[in-house]
């Protein structure tokens, strides 16, 4: 029987039989690559029944559904908070969804939904607060109680986008540090970050989704969980596949589920996940042998806050894992945002579960789609660029008389005059307030009162980006400059307010 099956491949039922009898051959994805390298695909295919994978990273589109049971008198919860984090109320009276990225109202950016899930899994008490409008059947309008996971009827992780097949490498072109969901990015491409386990990633080891789909049993947060189907933004064509998953939090461990805080960005949930890939055919043996050297991703400039960020090149996961990448011909250090140590550990634990006969494989009732696409948003408004709102800049040169500049401010009814050199390049800015102060302080030279370090913007920048810059630096105008630092206009907070009809 075994001989005839060799040509037709294995079935999941056969593998499960071998798990039961204790004959199953399991290797981690890392071991599989070594085995194929040393003995070839034929041997690896013959010897290996299952390849285990793993990943551990921040997965924001996650959360937990909980049912807290009915109070007496009962309440139909309208709004609820756990540890000051608002938890949404998607259904009937006492079902709540703890969204991983929802932040605490009293300790935002540091504590959020992800931390609540971790705390509950760790056995900690949390404070639940709820309000309601009251109904004939649910008269209660206020609730204050303290609960642990033992008080919950259901406590399930229900994540709608997890386990990205691969992700981009992020860097920053700006002159300032930026804080993103890809971490802290230093100015002028001084560092980079990436995410994902590369050749250990579950979806990467089954890139055509032959074995993964609805009902696939997986390692999730230290317990057994299930794939519910493809995740949101699943993009198989670009090898950016994702999955939707479910798992029983009461069985999970905080070692593989932990809240995370991204400075100035928000909170998230770190999730450990592993999928067993049954080696049903020779093709899967070959696919699970994929190495980090063969997985490439784009280096992307997060300094440009647009949907399509500029790409600066391609890099392999092998290079990323080396800790150093080349950006614009310069070597810079690159940080991982996900833990390779935990990813490896997960693939090892999953292997031992299967070997011990405590984890059986399940055939998906429907595999993940291989042809769906991820479209951008259909917007009813169009992007507004600085160039459409900017006005002509009133300019002066540094050696002009203060009085002449003051007159120009009055005759043009403006508050800002941009200082330029002969070529029209920016040298500074002077405001009506600077002139007022000059009079008060008895200063007469323009050079003594101009601001030389000026925040500027570009014509092709979105209005939102320019507004954010104005707000962040508490300023009221930005000179608009071109690539040669030549002044081409000025945008003021007043112009922006007018456009927004405020």
């Amino acid at each position: 029987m075994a001989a005839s099956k060799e040509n037709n491949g294995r079935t999941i039922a056969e593998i499960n039989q071998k798990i039961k009898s204790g004959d199953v051959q399991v290797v981690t994805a890392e071991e599989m690559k070594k085995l194929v390298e040393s003995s070839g695909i034929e041997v690896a295919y013959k010897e290996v029944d299952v390849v285990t994978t793993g990943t551990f990273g921040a997965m924001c589109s996650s959360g937990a559904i909980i049912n807290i049971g009915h109070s007496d008198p009962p309440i139909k919860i309208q709004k609820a908070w756990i540890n000051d984090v608002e938890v949404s109320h998607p259904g009937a009276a006492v079902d709540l969804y703890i969204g991983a990225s929802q932040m605490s109202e009293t300790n935002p950016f540091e504590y959020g939904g992800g931390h609540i899930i971790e705390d509950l899994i760790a056995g900690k008490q949390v404070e639940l607060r709820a309000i309601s409008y009251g109904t004939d059947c649910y008269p209660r309008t206020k609730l204050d109680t303290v609960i642990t996971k033992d008080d919950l009827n259901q406590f399930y992780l229900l994540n709608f986008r997890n386990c990205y097949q691969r992700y981009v490498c992020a860097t920053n072109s700006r002159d300032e540090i930026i804080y993103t969901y890809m971490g802290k990015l230093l100015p002028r491409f001084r560092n980079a970050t990436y995410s994902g386990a590369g050749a250990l990633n579950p979806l990467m080891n089954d890139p055509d989704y032959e074995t993964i789909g609805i009902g696939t049993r997986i390692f999730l947060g230290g317990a057994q969980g299930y794939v519910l189907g493809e995740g949101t933004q699943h993009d198989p064509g670009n090898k950016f596949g994702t999955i939707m998953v479910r798992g029983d939090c009461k069985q999970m461990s905080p070692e593989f589920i932990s809240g995370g805080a991204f400075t100035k960005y928000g909170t998230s949930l770190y999730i450990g996940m592993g999928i067993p890939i049954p080696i049903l055919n020779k093709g899967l043996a070959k696919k699970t042998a994929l190495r980090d050297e063969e997985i490439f991703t784009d280096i992307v400039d997060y300094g440009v806050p647009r949907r399509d960020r500029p790409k600066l090149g391609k890099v392999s996961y092998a290079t990323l894992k080396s800790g150093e990448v080349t950006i614009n011909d310069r070597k810079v250090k690159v940080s991982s945002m996900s833990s390779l140590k935990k990813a490896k550990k997960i693939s090892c634990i999953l292997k031992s579960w299967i070997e011990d006969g405590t984890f059986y494989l399940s055939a998906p009732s429907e595999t993940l789609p291989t042809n769906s696409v991820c479209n951008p948003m259909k917007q009813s408004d169009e992007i507004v660029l600085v160039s459409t709102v900017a006005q002509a800049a009133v300019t002066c040169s540094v050696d002009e008389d203060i009085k002449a500049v003051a007159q120009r401010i009055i005759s043009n009814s403006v508050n800002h005059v941009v200082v330029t050199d002969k070529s029209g390049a920016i040298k500074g800015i002077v405001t009506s307030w600077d002139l007022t102060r000059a009079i008060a302080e008895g200063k007469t030279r323009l050079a003594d009162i101009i601001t030389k370090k000026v925040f500027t913007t570009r014509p092709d920048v979105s209005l939102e980006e320019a507004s954010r810059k104005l707000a962040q630096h508490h300023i009221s105008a930005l000179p608009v400059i071109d690539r040669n630092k030549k002044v081409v206009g000025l945008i003021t907070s007043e112009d922006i307010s007018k456009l927004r009809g405020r």
Partner: protein
Amino acid sequence: MKEMDRILLRFSEENVEEPITSQVILELGIPMRIVTATINSLGGDILVEVPKVHLKKIVQAFKAKGVVVKFPKLIEVNYDLCIDCGACYALCPVNAISFKEDNSIVFDENTCIGSPCGLCVDSCPARAISLVEQNRNNQK
């Protein structure tokens, strides 16, 4: 490379203007590497690296000139909280953060320069890193 030790030299309001560090270097003829230096209204702190073999001699020389010498702990890493992601790794300007063979993160406390930098602190999603304040009123 010679084995080095780090000491924090604490100057008071009274002696901060005197060229004590230079004097010690000249008197002992031992080069020291100044890692960071900060001066404020209360005096000044200089973090220096000195050859381990001459540590005793150097500490004595500074103490004799009225300088408080401390062996500073500049950074505190809570490895129980650390999830070994490595978000901090690429931010360190002095390569004090590295991965061990088993992919876990390790801080070299003798290389870290502490509060003048602190770039890694707010990059940690697990909030496992904190700077140790060199409290002037708490002269341990």
